[in-house]
């Protein structure tokens, strides 16, 4: 029996750590608040909810159209560059919403890049009134939409890939036009994948901090931050977090449910891959232009703007210690990956050999860390460790223990662990489940110990999967802003924090170089991982 207990306690411990923010938020929901909450309820709260909803709905509509239509074009048609678009549209993942926001402001502001271009083309003139201005809300919506649409694109596309040509032929036999086939057959059968993509978009959108804070739009997420900061009111912050969490957990269950649904829609027998329709001449113009426009706006535009600035203001090559930031990033990425992958393997292995159902519930529960916006996580993290440290200091004769987890690398890694555990755990779990149990039995018969089975059979089998997970973790860590911003130690910057610090200091041109590095590394990682994501066997 002991072996159940050991795995049980280890999983319980890990689940406990990951669930810390949720528990902290939940408990402070019932504690006293200052009258700021009343003030907030009367004045701002409605505004926060309103802005959050406007952004959410608009982003959903935009990402739905962009994601589904582009996925449809590249999956069912063969037109110039369609293969190129099938992976290049994913590169938008390399541009965080806040960097997209910097680009929008830089390009469209009075005397900005658009003005420079017009002046160079047509000579001196006050073009400023002619250049469209995106106000804060519209700017945020555009920036968030273009940085998140790949979720819809990737999931919809992979669902299209698995759609059998048989269905489409049935449609043809029934005399449906291409448009009718799309609306009545293709779209409904891809529905679970689209919903799953949109649910991910919603979660990311609601937890966005960098973009809305750059555009100074008040949403539930910035509201939490502000009530915590400006009014020193942690309980209010936690209470708004609670409202936000309800939103997000709802979406989270929608996503889980859709995933489950999606499984039933995967074809088994009689699967025929899609015969892409070849488009030439005039007919190919619409899909080509559509995909090109999306690729241009989502990737080429921000990258060019950042390059333009880096070249125009070369002084920041000297001012910014870019090598150090590279090393910092590598350090964080390395530690976070090792830590996350190691624990994920451990829990998966434990769950496998103990065959305990309780473990499944526990591990499912611990996944909730992903659903929590980074900024809330950081707030809850500081609350928890600040209180814990006081408790320790008051009861035991130990000095200040706060610096162990607040403003330290260990604290940062622990917070990343909470945030990205579900990504790593689930990623490894999905592959681990594919290893048949009979393989383990055979290994035992051959005299392999459990440890040896793990290291000689499981790990080599999971190797590719582990690489993919490390890539995804790295991508997330490189782009992560609020947690790093709030918890980082002295003299320590990442690309994201350096760019954001400059941007909030009205030095967007200085933010270009770190942004460019961030985009560069992310692009490399995405290109590397598309090799795995896009190959149909995964």
């Amino acid at each position, binding site marked *: 029996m*002991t*072996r159940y207990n*050991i795995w049980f306690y*280890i999983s319980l411990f890990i689940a406990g750590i990951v669930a810390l923010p949720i528990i902290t938020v939940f408990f402070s929901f019932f504690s006293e608040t200052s009258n700021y909450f009343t003030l907030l309820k009367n*004045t701002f709260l409605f505004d926060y909810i309103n802005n959050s909803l406007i952004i959410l709905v608009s982003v959903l509509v935009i990402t739905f159209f962009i994601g589904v239509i582009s996925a449809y074009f590249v999956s069912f048609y063969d037109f110039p560059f369609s293969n190129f678009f099938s992976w290049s549209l994913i590169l938008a993942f390399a541009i965080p919403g806040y960097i997209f926001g910097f680009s929008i*402001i830089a390009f469209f*502001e*009075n*005397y*900005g890049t658009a*003005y*420079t271009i017009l*002046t160079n083309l047509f000579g001196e003139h*006050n073009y*400023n*009134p002619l250049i469209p201005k995106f*106000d*804060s809300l519209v700017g945020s919506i555009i920036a968030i939409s273009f940085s998140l649409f790949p979720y819809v694109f990737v999931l919809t596309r992979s669902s299209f890939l698995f759609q059998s040509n048989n269905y489409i032929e049935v449609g043809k036999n029934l005399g449906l036009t291409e448009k009718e086939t799309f609306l009545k057959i293709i779209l409904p059968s891809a529905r679970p994948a689209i919903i799953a993509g949109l649910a991910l978009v919603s979660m990311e959108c609601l937890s966005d901090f960098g973009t809305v804070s750059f555009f*100074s739009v008040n949403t539930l997420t910035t509201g939490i*931050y*502000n009530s*915590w*900061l400006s009014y020193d009111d942690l309980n209010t912050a936690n209470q708004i977090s609670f409202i936000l969490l309800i939103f997000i957990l709802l979406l989270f269950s929608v996503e889980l449910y859709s995933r489950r649904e999606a499984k039933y829609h995967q074809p088994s027998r009689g699967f025929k891959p899609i015969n892409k329709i070849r488009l030439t001449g005039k007919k190919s113009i619409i899909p080509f232009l559509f995909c090109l426009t999306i690729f241009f706006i989502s990737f080429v535009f921000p990258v060019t703007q950042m390059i333009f600035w880096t070249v*125009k*203001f070369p002084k920041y090559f000297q*001012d*910014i210690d870019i090598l150090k930031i590279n090393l910092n990033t590598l*350090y964080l990425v390395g*530690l976070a990956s090792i*830590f996350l992958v*190691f624990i994920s393997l*451990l829990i998966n292995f434990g769950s496998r050999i103990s065959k305990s159902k309780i473990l499944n519930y526990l591990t499912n529960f611990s996944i909730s860390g992903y659903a929590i916006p980074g900024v809330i996580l950081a707030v809850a993290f*500081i609350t928890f*460790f*600040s209180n814990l440290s006081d408790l320790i200091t008051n009861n035991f004769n130990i000095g*200040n223990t*706060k*610096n*162990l987890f*607040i*403003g*330290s*690398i*260990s604290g940062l*890694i622990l917070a990343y662990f909470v945030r990205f555990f579900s990504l790593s755990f689930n990623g490894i779990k999905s592959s681990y489940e594919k290893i048949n149990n009979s393989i383990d039995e055979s290994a035992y018969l051959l005299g392999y*110990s*459990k*440890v040896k089975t793990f290291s000689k059979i499981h790990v080599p089998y999971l190797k590719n999967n582990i690489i993919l997970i490390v890539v995804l973790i790295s991508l997330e860590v490189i782009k992560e802003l609020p947690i790093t*911003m*709030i918890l*980082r*130690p*002295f*003299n*320590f910057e990442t690309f994201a*924090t350096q760019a954001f*610090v400059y941007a909030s*200091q*009205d030095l967007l*041109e200085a933010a270009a170089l770190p942004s460019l590095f961030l985009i560069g590394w992310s692009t490399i990682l995405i290109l590397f991982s598309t090799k795995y994501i896009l190959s149909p066997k995964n």
Partner: protein
Amino acid sequence: MEKTMNKLIKTIGFGIVGLFSTILVASSVLADGHSKEVNIFSARHYDSDVQLYEKFTAKTGIKVNVVSGKSGALEKRIIAEAGTADLYITADAGRLGAFQANLQGGLTSSTIKSAVPSNFRTSKWVGIAKRARIVYFAPERVSGAELAGLTYESLADSKWRGRLVIRASNNIYNQSLVASLIKNNGKGKVAEWSKGMVKNMARAPKGNDRAQILAVAAGEADIAVANTYYLALMLSGKKGAEQQAAAKKVKPFFPNQDGRGTHMNISGAGLVKGAPNKANAIKLVEFLLSEEAQNHIVNNTFEYPMIAGVSPHPLVVNMGLDFKQDLKTKVVNYGKRQADALEVMTAAGWK
């Protein structure tokens, strides 16, 4: 079976302990225990400040540790990490005032007292550099007669309807300006004034101070409210040739010259409660107030020097130095009246 399990658990146990200790050792090496150091939480993070800290280290051998960020988050960390921070540096007296309870007295050396006029310091925090919040106008559309005798108060007059741009109410510079108005005119009058301001806005508030000045240059508005150093920054060409040309289309105007003078604010440093390196922190503040450091600051940030005997950057000199500064309204009031300021602006619908 038991044996292999024990072995496995041991391996795993060692693995976890190993990982944790690696991280802890690594992070303690990063934040290693210099005895000669000073820890700064800075909401003002110009590269030129970093160069200044390097000069200080070269002079004194005291290592300067910096964590930068937005003022709010930094304040929270200073509190949560009690006993870590020595100095809190920020670009607004309102911030320092509002954070008073977490600061301690001690910035009272004769060097500091003789360098900084008394209305720009308390025992807990002192100004390092000055800036004025002024009006910018487009000479093509605003005549000298229209501007004559302009005050912050009269910006709410109906003659400016639809012609004014200013930042959002959540901006600390605006909160400090409005706090000073409340101190001088009373909350009720300023509530009315805020309503007038909102009516006069050419557009809903957006962007930073520089964007307000650019809006006047672009013809979106006739007058703007912004800090002094932004115009000099653009005129210097550091923001590119386009903005340099745009800045030349706009002229500065210093309000309230016939009365108490133009609204002044500071970049300042506060001594944090429980500072572990208090003596070093005071040394750093004294260094920042030295002639060498002041020259460095004014030539990089285009602020006004805090001490006498140092000249601002030539571009700032060109904007005019013979204006009357408001030395009557103590900057401590910006923190005290901050909540009132935000309340009247929000009530008036100032976004």
